[in-house]
């Protein structure tokens, strides 16, 4: 059970990382300044979670 739980937990970090990656790509690609700002705010919790800080 312990190993399965670890795999599940790891997969959540992977999901977070993937979302953060897409957000980052969007920040770079977008031509709308407001979008860029908003996406930059949204990415914050994802980054801190991936780094296991919060």
């Amino acid at each position, binding site marked *: *059970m312990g190993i*399965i*739980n670890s795999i*599940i937990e790891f*997969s*959540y970090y992977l*999901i*977070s990382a*993937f*979302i953060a990656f*897409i*957000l980052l*790509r*969007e920040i770079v690609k977008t031509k709308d300044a*407001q*979008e860029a*700002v*908003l*996406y930059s*705010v*949204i990415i*914050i*919790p994802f980054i*801190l*979670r991936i780094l296991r800080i*919060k």
Partner: protein
Amino acid sequence: MFLHAGIVLIIIAVTFAVGTYFKLGIELAMLLSALAAAIYHTGGVPVRHLVEGAFTYYDVSLIFITATLFINLVKESGGIAFMVRKIIIRFHEHRYLTLLFLTFVLMIPGALTGAGAATVLTVGTLVGTVLIYMGISETRTAAIIFLCASMSAAAPPINLWAMMAAAGANMPYVGFMQPLLVITVIGALFTMFFLGAKGENPELDKILKELPVPPEKMNWTRVGTPFLILIVLIVAGRLFPFKMPILGLPLMFLISALAMFILSPKKLNILNIAGKTIRSLIPLVGIMIVVGILIQIMALSGARGLISLAVVTLPVWFLFASLFIILPVSEGLLQYAVAPLLGVPLIFLFNMKGFNPVIILSAMAVMWPIGDILPPTAVVGRATVIELDYSGRYYKDFLKTCLIPMAFILALCTIFLVFSNQLSFLVGG
């Protein structure tokens, strides 16, 4: 402190108004008002609080994203088109039976997850397409999808508002099954038949011509298995809670998505679809994250407490006469955070006054999701509009069409509030 918290609320409102006036999006205007309130309250920028608030709906965001990814894969594989065709062929001569069946379909995802968005994002497009082919206008279809999604979110076994408020009030989540079921089923059926009963029965040949053609190899096994896996995973967690590892909804959706990817008759570019999904959901995720930040600043400055205090110090008769407005509006403002914020003090209050807390909380927990159509967050309303590619006006068409069924449901809930003791026989298993 009353004055201070009052000023904070005014600052939030004014900054939001100014922000929108200068053409800022809702999310950024809200972020700005949180920032202004934070600066006024602390005299600096409380970075830790701003960032911490962003985590409030982190897990809910993950559910939204993964659920949408799953359904987008079903769409791209031709599964939705396949199911729509099959439903229409099977049911096109029995309008009422079709509506009944579709109500049932709409109730399932939200009932199992507690999220109205899950209904919209998983079966919204499918049911919406069928409804439109049944001669129901685009606006009425959107209204049906939204309201049934709200009812599904409120439906048992999972009602997140009731669960969160019950947790805050140290009540076991027991006895809610029947009251919630009665209100939500009546609400959903009323909505479906009120908005969808009229309309011309579809001419089968014409529709089948218009509908997109699914890939030849698509069949019930291919499209049904991922849904079956999803249901099995959710139900297994409930039936064998001590044997099943805790997967969490996001992972369940991903596993089902993977199954769809494997079973799809045509090759799917999963990375592209995932990217597209996240991009389409950024406004939803954005609003959830910004609302979290705002709530944190409101809690910090006492503004949240002031709102909460203002509500619970209203006389009980006035609460009965106004909760049908207060609860949906507060949901529009704060999302799930209203359950602990207003739900817990209200439950304590009603319990103190001798009302049946289970019936009271059940009624409130159906009123809240109705507010998911209201600004500034309007999470499920917006999701509905996005998913259905709705072309009408949000307030003047979509919201207006929802009003009568909304009023019906809210009135029903108010009856449950007032007669909670008389209805306490419903508190069963």
